[in-house]
């Protein structure tokens, strides 16, 4: 039985009045990309989507990894994918990363790559598409940054847009 729960609620204003400490954390990292992601990022720089094949389960893993998490064995070789795919799911976002409201919504979602197993892809932005036309199953293709601007990052792809030819 909860009789009188404790806790002294504060308004945002009160929080500034009560004794408190403000501090800015400093937590910076240089993560090693590792074997698989170093290749993948190099591929992006060259305008390629690279996957890694597992002979046992016959999957092409993308994003690639050096081991297959289902079979628990080393993967076997590199596979270049066409880069096209279909929208697996999407969102139309009116908030940014810090939950600030934004006027022009971000179209974002997960696509499944052609040439990979079902539901196998990455998250990215969608562009050149309206809220009315975007749908699950929509065929899409990558829009790459110009070669000289690519640095080996997921943002070397500007976004995926509907494949008008499909």
């Amino acid at each position: 039985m909860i009789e009188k729960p404790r806790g002294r609620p504060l308004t945002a204003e009160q929080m500034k009045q009560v004794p408190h400490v403000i501090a800015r954390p400093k937590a910076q990292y240089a993560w090693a990309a590792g074997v698989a992601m170093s290749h993948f990022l190099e591929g992006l720089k060259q305008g390629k989507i690279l996957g890694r094949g597992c002979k046992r389960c016959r999957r092409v893993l993308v994003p690639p990894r050096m081991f297959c998490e289902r079979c628990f064995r080393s993967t076997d070789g590199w596979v270049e994918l066409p880069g096209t795919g279909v929208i697996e799911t999407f969102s139309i976002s009116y908030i940014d990363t810090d939950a600030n409201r934004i006027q022009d919504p971000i179209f974002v979602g997960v696509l499944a790559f052609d040439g990979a197993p079902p539901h196998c892809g990455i998250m990215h932005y969608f562009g050149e598409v309206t809220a009315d036309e975007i749908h699950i199953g929509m065929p899409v293709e990558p829009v790459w940054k110009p070669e000289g601007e690519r640095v080996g990052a997921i943002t070397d792809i500007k976004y995926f847009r509907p494949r008008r030819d499909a």
Partner: protein
Amino acid sequence: MSKRDVAVIGVGYTSFNSLTPEVNWKELMFEAAQKAYQDAGIDPRKDVDSFITCAEDFWEGFSIFDEFTPDQLGAVLRPMHTVTGDGLLGLANAYMQIKTGLFDIVVVEAHSKISELLTYEDVVQLAFDPIYEAPLSGDVHPYYVAGLEMRAYLEATGTTEEQCAAVVVQHKRAAFFNPVAEFEAQLEIDDVMGSGYAFDPLKRLEIAPRADGSIVFVLAGGEIARRLRGCPVYLEGIGWSSESPWIAARSPYAEYAQRAAQRAYEMAGIQNPRREIDLAEVDDQFAFKALQHLEALGLARPGEAGPRMREGAFGPEGEMAVNRSGGSLGCGHLLEASGLARALEIVLQLRGEAGTRQIKDARVGVAQSWRGVPHGTGAVAVFSRRD
């Protein structure tokens, strides 16, 4: 308590390196895991009932690091969780799970990828109380707390600075015989004493350098272990305990280790640790900690570990082998994996697989961990060979 016993059926580990730029944390863990499963002769996708990783978010740079652990251990769509503590705390959970009888084989992983953290000192300071402790130190290195604790220990026990320096000499020499250790060195006490005060009375060379690495243990119920390995190493007892988290409110005797040892010994049926234990691996993130911990484990009386260390009683020719692995001073401090590194050495020694540093007739060993500045939490595990 249930009568089922618990044994180690496999260990796997990478080498311990100051940098590992060629692999990410997943690939590092995969290597240790695959070696452990080979060693145990099991298939993680079928044979393991529960997986545990030991990690802290800010060491890794992820708000929820638990997300990034299952694939490389073979734990996808299986029971798995994170312990935010060192590897021995992971072993404790595995031990309890096996004791319930519902879990037969449990995997414990701990690792360090600390070379990727560029602001290590700031993150250590982020573990201080944000109201009363952190605002005091500004740009001062947070390891000053180790200086405070070392002074309190020296005052309380009469241990000398030279005796602490002897720990560095011995552990870094031991590391020559450990192929996975990276911080071996041929030093004399004068070298350590002359290395300069960092946080008086703590000297620069008395601080363990950091290293990357991953260690995986596979534990099983005794009846399974005997079937798979014949004569496994048993986890006979495990204890863990905490003192106050307030920096200024702790004892100079590492009471956390005393209490943890008490429990572990009780479970293992050890009444006279000095007589019954053949080798010890204790936490030595700072040289004096090794002495303080040896005393807390009852392997020396308060104030006695220092002189005995200096005489060589814990060395290769001594009466009890201590940190033959090289400890954190010799292997590098592996953050949450340091406890498992201590336990790993015990297992290898008890199996007779310790190569050129092998101790003769080792039957009972104890491993101990401490969670580091600014905290007072530690664990103790007792292992044995029963043949």
